[in-house]
């Protein structure tokens, strides 16, 4: 009996030490599932209720169609107010069709809360950082992705009516679910002069015919009719405003930047996010999750951004190159150079307006749908890979046929007999449910890696020398052993955030001289002429700042380093 009790006790102890199991979670969320608007809201409410000591949920505004923009703050108040800690901002799905970006945000929140106290790095992150999570920015179009007949390329924009075809009418010719299957697929019509013929490799695919070959098909468009009788199908879709071109900074008007909106932050969600980030001066890094390309993207987004300061680029490079290892298959790139010019996007806005660094992460890559024996590099590099064919094999033998809908013949009111079919809504730009969790976890891990590298201040007394005549020379070092500086070079250059304060004070003490110690060996000091007890500075990436003070008097001095984007530190010196 005694043995049994001991064994049971040991077993219980072992269970309590082992990582949490599903049964142990307070909030059981599935990670092989895409959450619609209501489910996302419910999940956030459950998390904030179950972890009310660490999480708080609020609506930061409403969308054009009246949906709430939910924002979850994760912070341990026992270790300090959120504004006193380096903040990480995370959002997703600013493009409504890029739906799994919401799951990344949701997973990050869930992972932080469920593992707080169990996994040391998570506990440290929640104690040391403040996480501000907006799982979905484009709540309207993402909600409609689930509610309306949809497709992976439908719903990028905000629901702000727009006259795409310049005929004086707004949004009058959108898609139509002709076969009533709840999805908008492709539409083709038999045409012997058409540019396509059936692929010899798979009858579900079409290939471009050679000039001397007989045509077979003409691809008309996605499912739809000519609603306004102008001879075009689906030429004036709902909305047009691209919220990731609607932020401030280098915003340009719609004739320069497609989808820019009438003026910066003219969309309700972008305005709400703008006001929210304005209220968080402690933000040290930001993330915007998108869904196509397998990319870690940094600015500049266009020539209007100008060159980024080299020291800021080094931080980007460190975090981006490490991200390529955390996320195999992802590529770290520069938006302007490796993609195309964009204006008014979120990461550029954050950098130009507040001097805050950030990444745009593109979640899905076509290598996720591969079906052949080849390395990641081969897949990415080889332009000749018949990847549509490979994806079909993946569909057939891995996804069990759930990704592609065979062509079916229907009667079109204007075109007569047409065929409808192709890649289904939850494909092409997104992982299949069984692939989701690893992707979510690795992206959350990249966020945690940057959280780990938000600035942390350390103070060290380098020297305390009695100069006689009641004068003492103090030399103090403030260090930041992390990659992200307390203020970026951009923020410093344009006064985008308050400078750090390095101060010395004490009753009965007078600071008679002070300044930045540029060379301790040659005693070169850059003096501060006014108020030498207060030195304005910043801590660079993996760097330090040394100061020297000459103090008259005796007693206790408090040396304090105060940064808006890091937790303050103090050091007491007696003399």
């Amino acid at each position, binding site marked *: 009996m005694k043995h049994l009790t001991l064994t049971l006790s040991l077993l219980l102890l072992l269970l309590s030490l082992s990582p949490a199991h599903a049964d142990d979670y307070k909030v059981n969320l599935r990670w092989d599932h895409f959450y619609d608007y209501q489910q996302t809201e419910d999940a956030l409410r459950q998390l904030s209720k179950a972890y009310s000591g660490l999480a708080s949920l609020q609506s930061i505004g409403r969308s054009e169609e009246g949906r709430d923009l939910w924002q979850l703050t994760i912070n341990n108040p026992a270790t300090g107010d959120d504004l006193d800690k380096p903040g990480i901002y995370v959002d997703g799905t600013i493009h409504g069709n890029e739906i799994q970006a919401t799951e990344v945000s949701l997973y990050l929140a869930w992972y932080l809360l469920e593992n707080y106290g169990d996994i040391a790095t998570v506990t440290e992150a929640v104690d040391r950082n403040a996480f501000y999570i907006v799982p979905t920015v484009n709540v309207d179009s993402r909600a409609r992705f689930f509610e309306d007949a949809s497709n992976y390329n439908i719903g990028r924009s905000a629901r702000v009516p727009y*006259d795409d075809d*310049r*005929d*004086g*009418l707004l949004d009058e010719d959108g898609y139509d679910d002709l076969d009533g299957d709840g999805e908008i697929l492709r539409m083709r019509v038999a045409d012997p002069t058409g*540019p396509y013929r059936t692929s010899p490799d798979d009858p579900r695919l079409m290939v471009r015919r050679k000039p001397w070959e007989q045509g077979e098909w003409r691809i008309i468009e996605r499912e739809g009719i000519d609603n*306004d*009788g*102008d*001879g075009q199908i689906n030429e004036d879709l709902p909305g047009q405003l691209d919220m990731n071109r609607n*932020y*401030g*900074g*280098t*915003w*340009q*008007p*719609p*004739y*320069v*930047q*497609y989808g820019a909106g*009438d*003026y*910066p*932050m*003219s969309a309700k969600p972008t305005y709400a996010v*703008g006001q929210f980030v*304005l209220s968080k001066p402690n933000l040290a890094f930001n993330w915007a999750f998108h869904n196509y390309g397998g990319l870690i993207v940094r600015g500049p987004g*266009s*020539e*209007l951004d100008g060159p980024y300061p080299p020291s800021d680029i080094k931080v980007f490079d460190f975090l981006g190159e490490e991200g390529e290892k955390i996320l195999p298959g992802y590529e770290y790139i520069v938006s302007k150079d490796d993609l*195309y*010019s964009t204006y008014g996007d979120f990461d550029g*806005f954050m950098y*130009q*307006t507040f001097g805050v660094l950030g990444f745009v992460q593109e979640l899905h890559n076509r290598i996720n749908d591969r079906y052949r024996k080849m390395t990641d590099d081969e897949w990415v590099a080889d332009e000749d890979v018949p990847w549509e064919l490979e994806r079909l094999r993946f569909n057939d033998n891995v996804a069990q046929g759930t990704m592609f809908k065979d062509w079916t013949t229907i009667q079109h009111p204007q075109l007569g007999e047409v065929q409808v079919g192709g890649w289904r809504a939850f494909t092409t730009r997104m992982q299949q449910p069984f692939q989701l969790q690893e992707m979510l976890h690795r992206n959350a891990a990249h966020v945690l890696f940057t959280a780990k590298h938000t600035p942390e201040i350390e103070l060290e007394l380098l020297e305390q020398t009695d100069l006689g005549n009641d004068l003492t020379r103090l030399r103090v070092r403030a260090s930041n052993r992390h990659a992200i500086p307390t203020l970026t070079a951009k923020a410093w250059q*344009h*006064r*985008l*955030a*308050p*400078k750090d*304060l390095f101060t010395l004070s004490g009753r009965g003490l007078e600071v008679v001289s002070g300044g930045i110690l540029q060379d301790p060996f040659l005693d070169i000091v850059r003096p501060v*002429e*006014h*108020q030498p007890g207060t030195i*304005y500075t910043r801590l660079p990436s993996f760097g330090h700042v040394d100061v020297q003070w000459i103090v008259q008097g005796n007693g206790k001095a408090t040396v304090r380093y*105060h940064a808006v984007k890091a937790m303050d530190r103090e050091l007491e010196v007696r003399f």
Partner: protein
Amino acid sequence: MKRIAILFLVAVVVVSLILPGLAAVTHASYHPPMLLLDAFHDLARASRDVTLHDLGNTPGGAPLALLEIGARGNNAPGILVVANMTGDAPLASEAALELAQRLTGDWSDAAHEVTWYIYACGNPDGYASFFAPVKMERFTNAKPVNNDADRLVDEDGADDINGDSVITMIRQRHPEGEFVAVADKPYMKSADPAEGQAARYRLFPEGIDNDLDGSINEDQTGGVNPGYNFPHNWPMHTDNAGLWAASETESRELMRFAYDHTNIAMVLVFGRSNTLRSVPETDRKADLLNESFAVPGWLARRAGLKRGSSMKLGEMLTITRDALSRPGVTVDQLLGWISTGAETEPHPKDLVYWNAIASRYTAFLDSTGANGDRLDPPPPVDGSVEEWAYFQYGTPTFALDFWTLPTPDSADDDSVDTDTEPGYADAELDALLAYDPSAWVAWKPFDHATLGRVEIGGVRPFATLAPKQDEVEGLIDTQLPFVLELSDLLPRVSIDSVAVTERASGVYELDAWITNTGFLPYPTWHGQRTQRPSPVTLTLEGVDAASILEGRPRHVCDLLEGNGGSERARWVVTARPGSEVTLTLWSSSAGGEQRQVTLKGGRR
């Protein structure tokens, strides 16, 4: 008798309470923002054709009001008048108030065919400095901004240290000084090392170093001038321009109002610039097809071109249409794709109209005697409302200033052609001294808390920005009527003629000519680029789509030149002889009409 007098007085009070709008506003003194608002409230109460729109509040809590005057509301073409957006143009607000008053009185006819939207003061917080007990030229709103990025906000503003109720300048003799006194002039000029000038001065704005950081007045109260906060050429990272374009309620809500009122056909800006006196010049090409541009990388890939190549836009258009298999790609689409950036100069075809209107303006001022010699007004600032209105909102836009300092007779002889006191051009100071010698506050010694012995003096605030009070009525009387001339220039579209021809039995050809009888084109040539306003459409109704053999139900006119610019719409339809169809001409801001047409007629 006494009783009658009392009754009369009571009656006067009652009538004045019931009909406050009847009391004519005068310009015997400038109206502070709250009195402008009161006057607008009075006008709105006095007429059902007048509506006061609430655009929110400034950071300082001042209401932002926009007055609508017009019998037909959104159904008539609109003119948006924006005054004193930068807060430094008192006469602009007075002119806007006078315009509102006249449109509800003597000029009420002008509000029958046009709806007027008047924003009499776009920057009430900044303009309030004109009426403050201590006067200073600072025109930012009350939004707190940490200009020096320390830990305090708005902690080091100006101080009236000599107690004369005006903030002027401090000069201090100092080895590091950059300015020297000018002989026979009260002002200073930049020191010229070649002249070996010894007596050097440093100049500071009047104030003390409140936060003891070594700088004077470096973090003043408030921080954004809404007049620099519009999104065309917005000066990013510039003091007073805001954190982002449209960050301020004053500018953002005005733009929101403008985009919500698609009937606005013209924008008039009353402020400090005058784009009819100084018409902007342009090097922009009317026809870009023969201009060379770099081929973007993605297009080079798709078209099999060498990366980094360039070619004429016309060739690129052909190649793009072919490479993308999209024959409908337009020049404007392609310009967007190849990132040519925002236009910064007016379209040359718009300037044809602009210059003609400027000539009319000059002739008008000559006729009223208001075209005296005066200093040139400054050009529009970056981020200004007038540049936004033309370059992004896409409407004809004209800025009027009503006043600058008169040019002194001796200006050319005596002015010093080097940099003078910060913020002023030398010619402006000479003109000021000739116009009003009391506008200069003489230098007087003063013991400064941190600088020691200094002198305080300089230009009296607002002296270069506002005319003497007794000139205000005359300046407005002689110039404001040109606004009515401008309102007569709006584009107006109509169906000029309709012809029906029977092509075969029951088959009719319908020809309709759409014309613009107004002076200005619709839209402007630049508006065509910005895709604002919506184009004119002529819609054929009364036949089902299947009966239209040629043409589409909606005919779209991309651009109609002014003064009779025309376009033909043509349909071939099958219909019963004698049946009626309806043609509906629509525009957002240039009128429209409906016409019934009977399908009958002789064969061609």
